[in-house]
């Protein structure tokens, strides 16, 4: 049984068709990302499946039930953007509300608060929160019911690096515990590290791809004589070698790092070396262009 099953979903705002007959299946335990430029329809899609806005056509099932059945929210959480928070209420007021409407044990509030680490500001009014604090509160509200299916809209938005790492770890843990996670994000580096599948939204259509095929390592070397070194590396064959901002970029293409290192050390002196993973970003650029 799919956790999320979307068939032929369409949604328009006036004459502008945001989602055009899109379909999507997410299986239990998957961590899937929804990626696309601003205004491509990511949030609209998430709002449609959560039944926050009406769809024009198509069907949506969550955890085997139609998305119009509000009982699905007992085991499904949707972390919407921070405009859904009441500025004049405290974080704790929000958590209590979610806890009580979902008929959860009161311990759930403490557990979520401690998991996300927001104890020091839950008694403040939300209007005094920073963007990152709001995101953390929303996340705490979303995991309160230990959902089987967790949907997050831009969970890394506004978070500091420490919290990004914390959230990433949490999502990976949830996935290991069996929670299916579906998130939208602009943070392609995070997407690369966490997800197996990416749903690209382009012109109202979905392009679902296994991200692993785009993930490859690129090594950047700074050497004393780059011109001659490039020639020697190209002579090895199989490698893709090019110059970028004064550095030599090498895609090992299955050759592995060690032969490349040995070759450079024979011919030149390595001043510095770094590694970059080029995955979702590469595919993103190929789909949407650089601008």
């Amino acid at each position, binding site marked *: 049984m799919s956790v999320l099953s979307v068939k032929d979903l369409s949604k328009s705002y006036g004459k502008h068709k945001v989602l055009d007959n899109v379909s999507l299946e997410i299986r239990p335990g998957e961590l899937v990302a929804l990626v696309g430029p601003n205004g491509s329809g990511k949030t609209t899609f998430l709002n449609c499946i959560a039944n926050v*806005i009406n769809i024009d056509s198509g069907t949506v099932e969550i955890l085997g039930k139609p998305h119009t059945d*509000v009982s699905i*929210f007992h085991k499904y959480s949707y972390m919407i953007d921070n405009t859904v928070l009441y500025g004049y209420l405290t974080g704790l007021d929000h958590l209590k509300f979610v806890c009580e*409407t979902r008929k959860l044990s009161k*311990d759930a509030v403490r557990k979520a608060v401690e998991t996300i680490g927001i104890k020091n500001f839950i*008694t403040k009014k939300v209007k005094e929160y920073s963007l990152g604090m709001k995101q953390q509160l929303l996340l705490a509200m979303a995991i309160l019911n230990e959902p089987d299916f967790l949907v997050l809209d831009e969970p890394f938005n506004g978070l500091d690096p420490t919290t990004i790492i914390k959230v990433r770890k949490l999502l990976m843990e949830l996935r290991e515990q069996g929670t299916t996670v579906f998130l939208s994000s602009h943070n392609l580096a995070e997407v690369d590290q966490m997800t197996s599948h990416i749903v690209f939204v382009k012109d109202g259509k979905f392009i679902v791809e296994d991200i692993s095929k785009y993930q490859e390592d690129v090594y950047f070397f700074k050497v004393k004589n780059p011109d001659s070194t490039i020639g020697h590396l190209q002579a090895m064959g199989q490698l893709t070698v090019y110059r970028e901002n004064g550095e030599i970029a090498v895609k090992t293409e299955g050759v592995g790092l060690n032969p490349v290192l040995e070759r450079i050390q024979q011919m030149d002196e390595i001043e510095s070396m770094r590694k970059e993973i080029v995955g979702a970003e590469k595919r993103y650029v190929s789909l949407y262009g650089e601008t």
Partner: protein
Amino acid sequence: MIIGGGKRVQFQAGTYQDSIFTEEKNSGTEKIRLTQPVRRINILLAKLGASLVYIFAFLIATALVSYLLAGLLGGGFGSIHYPVEIDIGYISTIGPVGKYVALAGLLYCLYLLVIISCITLLAAIVKETSIVAVLGIFLITIGSRWQANASHFNPFSFLNFQHFFTSSSQCITEIWIAFGIALGISSLLTLLAHYVSTTTWGQNLSLSPKEKEGNKELTKYEKKRALPLPYFRFEVLKIMKRKTVVVPFILLLVFTMLYGFEQYSQYERFRDSELAIYRTQAESYWDSINRLQRGVAEGIFKPEMVEETLADNTDTYNMYLYAIEAFERRDTAKIAEGQKSIFKYETSNWGNFYPPDTISVYCATQDEIIKRQVQTVHTKSPPLGGLISSPFAMESDLKHIKSWHIRNSQPSITYIFNSLFKNGLAIIALAIFAVSLSVGFSDETHDTRTICLLNTQPLHRKRIYFGKLLAQSAVFISMILIIAAVFCAGLGIAGSPLEKNFPAVQYLNQVDGNYSGVKLWRANLREFEGKAFSASSSGYFVGFTFRDMLVENIEMVALLILSGLVMVAFAMFASQKIRHKIGVSLGTVLIFGMGYLASRYALRGAGIIFPFIWLNQPLVATGEASMIFDVNILNSLVGIAILALWLAALVFVGYKMFSKTGRYL
């Protein structure tokens, strides 16, 4: 027309002025201004100037429209040169009406300048749009109570234009003085606002309570017993945590309490004042009797010449003496009897000023007071006190005594509570609650999308709709009942007696053959003054009866609560189309206000089917409405039934619409 229209601008000016400051603070756009190379004081002055330009533009537009209407439909465009007479107890002509309007306009602008400066200071301190709006309304309301004391040092009295127009030459001097003082006060307030906005304490000043410790609060929550109706409780919590609801409520509570204590404490003063008047009258008649008797003794008058006058004066003197002795012995029955005799005697000398219908009702009320053994009503200016609450007193006569601020006083809780309605305070409270509470769903959609949070919980739409409606209704009813209870308890503690059986006049439309009481002329009603009375209207005579004032009070409270609930239900309905919070709440107040005027002055009897005429609870509960619209069934119980039907209809239509539209409104 121009002046009348202008007076209503003050509330709009207040609302505009406070939002011009606080909205930017709330939305954060203020930071954009503050990071530009402009001095803070210049920003403040620019905003003040913008407000004044806005108000002047509104006033000029009102003046032009009024002038055009008067020119096209009225007496022609030359009417601006018509002479005007200002009546402040004596007649004084100051010249053409155009000059009067210009001078009044100038005074009005000075008044507004001071109001705007006050609101600027409030906005600098409080920084919350709706709280400043409510405080502004309070300021204007309280200020209007000082209008009677015309003084250059009291800018609120500038609205009472006529006091400044004693003569044409003096008028100019008076206005120059007023101009200087208003400008001085305004500058002082603006500088103070500037000072507050630049100081650290002013910027940090917050009405929020101190923050609590997270762990402690979590433990407290865990220990608490689980309560039912989580969504309803959440909605109540949301309402109660909004300062825009709580602050007006507290202010209203304090204001009504102060009003109650003032009413109670003035009773003895009014009683003493009335007694002093009677003593003066008695002394004057005693002097007159002595003079006449001396004249007879000294042979100046022949006894038969003064016999009748002497007898009359002796009777009148004895009448006052009777009342004085009753006052001194605090014999309520005799006081009432004495007041009645004096009232009848005094009003007989005033010709048409006191319609016979007014006298009949007053005398019957005095008899009823005696019968019911309750305390008497006193006024500083007898016998005018008997006139002010009568629907038969002519507007042209009331116009004079209105400016004298004559009030009646009676010390019981029942009477003072009743006066909350009859002095229009209940309707002000309703308007304030409507502005702060009747927001429907707009508080979930105005600058926010909190409705989505509700839509992503396991909550059925029915629970969302009715939970919100019930929470708003419950808070409104609770607040009204709390104010009423605290008001009555406070007066009770202060020593005010209950006297629930104080006689409340209830007018009866179309009395039948079995009616044995006094018949009143319907045509004498103030409502028909200056109008041709329709002969086709059935029943020329109306009557009246008495009932316990407590019953009248209960009816008025029920009408007030139901009217408020209809407004809440209307806002729930309207907010599904209008997302702007202020738009919904002010729109609701505006529609009900306009609806009331239409029902009262255009639809009249036909207005009974709408939920508006019931906003004037005293008009309905006293039977005045049934009398002036000639509709027998127009009474509180019918009002309660009609309001209940409207409530049910609005809830039904609102819910139908809510269940049809998208989950995100």
